[in-house]
């Protein structure tokens, strides 16, 4: 009895070992186990003890590496993680996950139709006369549907739903109640900042109302990076579709451009917002996250570029000329550096020891800091010369927000690289700081237009 028991234990261990191989599926393991048991039975009948028989049977089965290689050669598709649309129903939530796809399609359809609603009231999208209206409101078409999708999926309570609705209404009021002319700076600032503010509102829905949790916030940061990548990829595919549509219909003498401009592009873009989000969610445990991979590739390159830039500034003794475009460029650069920091953090094993990549990251942050200080000096010079305009104030505020973040990040990172601080503090700092972005974006949207007389 104990012999049998031992044997079962050994076979169970062997099975667990097999299951760890991705190349070997469950049925393969079952087939191999049947073989192993047949072999053991034969050997024990021939007079061997059970444990001896087990050893010989395992040995004759062949090395697991070789076996995996042969299975991989035959089943190479298994090495690619594929998106399987209907997941295997295994949990009580199966009914819900079956409804996931229809609900996603519904949300995408709502988002796609939402952008067509204003045109029924005479605000034509394609004509270009109402470009300002669409620029201000662009985030109000798809993001409420996205928030609704997450609210449904996460089963958030009525209080959170109420708060979400309130924030979206607030955004809609801010975008449309102020008398913002199309060519004013405050209009452009609203068009840029309202999507950021509302995206973070989506974040509240994404976390299922648990937006105070650092871990959930980090999940939302990860989601944002992956979402952006999927969105760009879908955009590329959409470009191919558009080109093909135009060409194919032109070949039979039908002009499809009107349809593309007023239907395919706007509705497709809005639906893509939802579809990307759904893809990220569906694939999050299935494929490697791309944002951290891109971060790994580009961190050394950006570090080299920033250092080269600093050397060039010192060498040529040229100050940074803060023209309007240059200002936006440097703001974007700092955003990119921050993004790379965030996505390096997001994929990091929090318990791992500091390595070369961490030093590189620190160099990146420090060089970005120095550049930020140079840019700040230049902006301050311009403001004292010309006074506060909405654009310059916004640029100044953004720089201060980023400076504070990067300076404290550099300090925490230095502490970590020198082994004095756990990495988790850096992560916590970044997730806590998200609230500052939200606050700043809402300030720009709500307070700037009246503050600057809707200029």
């Amino acid at each position, binding site marked *: 009895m104990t012999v049998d028991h031992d044997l079962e234990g050994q076979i169970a261990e062997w099975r667990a070992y097999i299951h760890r191989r991705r190349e070997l599926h469950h049925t393969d393991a079952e087939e191999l186990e*049947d073989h192993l048991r047949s072999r053991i039975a034969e050997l024990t009948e021939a007079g061997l003890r059970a444990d001896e028989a087990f050893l010989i049977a395992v040995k004759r089965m062949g090395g697991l590496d070789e076996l995996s290689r042969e299975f991989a050669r035959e089943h190479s598709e298994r090495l690619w993680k594929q998106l399987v649309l209907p997941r295997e129903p295994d949990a009580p939530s199966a009914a819900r996950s079956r409804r996931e796809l229809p609900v996603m399609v519904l949300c995408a359809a709502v988002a796609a139709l939402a952008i067509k609603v204003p045109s029924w009231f005479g605000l034509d999208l394609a004509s270009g006369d109402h470009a300002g209206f669409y620029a201000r409101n662009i985030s109000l078409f798809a993001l409420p549907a996205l928030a609704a999708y997450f609210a449904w999926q996460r089963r958030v309570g009525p209080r959170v739903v109420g708060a979400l609705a309130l924030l979206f209404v607030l955004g809609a009021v801010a975008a449309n109640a102020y008398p913002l002319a199309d060519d004013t700076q405050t209009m452009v600032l609203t068009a840029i900042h309202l999507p950021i503010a509302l995206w973070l509102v989506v974040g509240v829905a994404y976390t299922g109302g648990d937006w105070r949790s650092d871990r959930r916030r980090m999940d939302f940061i990860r989601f944002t990076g992956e979402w952006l990548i999927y969105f760009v990829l879908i955009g590329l595919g959409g470009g191919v579709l558009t080109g093909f549509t135009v060409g194919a219909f032109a070949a039979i003498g039908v002009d499809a451009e009107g349809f593309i401009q007023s239907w395919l592009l706007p509705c497709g873009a809005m639906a893509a917002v939802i579809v990307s989000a759904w893809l990220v969610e569906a694939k999050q445990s299935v494929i490697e996250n791309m944002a951290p991979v891109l971060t790994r590739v580009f961190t050394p390159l950006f570090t080299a570029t920033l250092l080269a830039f600093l050397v060039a500034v010192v060498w040529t003794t040229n100050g940074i000329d803060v023209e309007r475009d240059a200002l936006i460029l440097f703001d974007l650069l700092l955003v990119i550096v921050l993004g790379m920091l965030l996505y390096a953090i997001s994929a990091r094993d929090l318990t791992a020891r500091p390595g070369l990549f961490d030093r590189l990251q620190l160099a990146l942050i420090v060089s970005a800091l120095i550049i930020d200080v140079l840019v700040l000096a230049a902006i301050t010079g311009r403001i004292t010369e010309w006074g506060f305009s909405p654009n310059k104030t916004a640029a100044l505020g953004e720089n201060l927000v980023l400076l504070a973040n990067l300076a404290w990040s550099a300090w925490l990172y230095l502490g970590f690289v020198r082994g004095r601080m756990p990495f988790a503090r850096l992560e916590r700092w970044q997730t806590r700081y998200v609230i500052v972005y939200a606050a700043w974006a809402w300030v720009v949207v709500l307070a700037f237009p009246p503050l600057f007389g809707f200029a």
Partner: protein
Amino acid sequence: MHITKDLVAASATPLVLGILAEGESYGYAILKQVNDLSGGQLEWTDGLLYPLLHRLERLGHVESTWATPAGGRRRKYYRITDQGRAELAEQRRQWAAVVDALRGVWSTTQSIKPITAPAWGAGL
């Protein structure tokens, strides 16, 4: 006697198809039959039979079913298809040509002692 890996690999497909042509079977039984047919000369690594069976299944030469014999474990049985039989016939023609050529070589080349190769014979 040790038979080289290449020969084992080359003879594996006709062997398996030939055994399955006799009737439905499963992995372990196929392996035992190979062993019996070759008088223990052909040594396969047990596990590697299965990727081969899966390949034959993908190519359509065999088909498989899971069945549970009375009082036994769930087991995967393989059965040869018509396409598999055609493939077996084709392989048989090819091997016959190879064996004929080799026989010619053995009889004309006096310096080589004629050795019968049971492994190849078993496959035919």
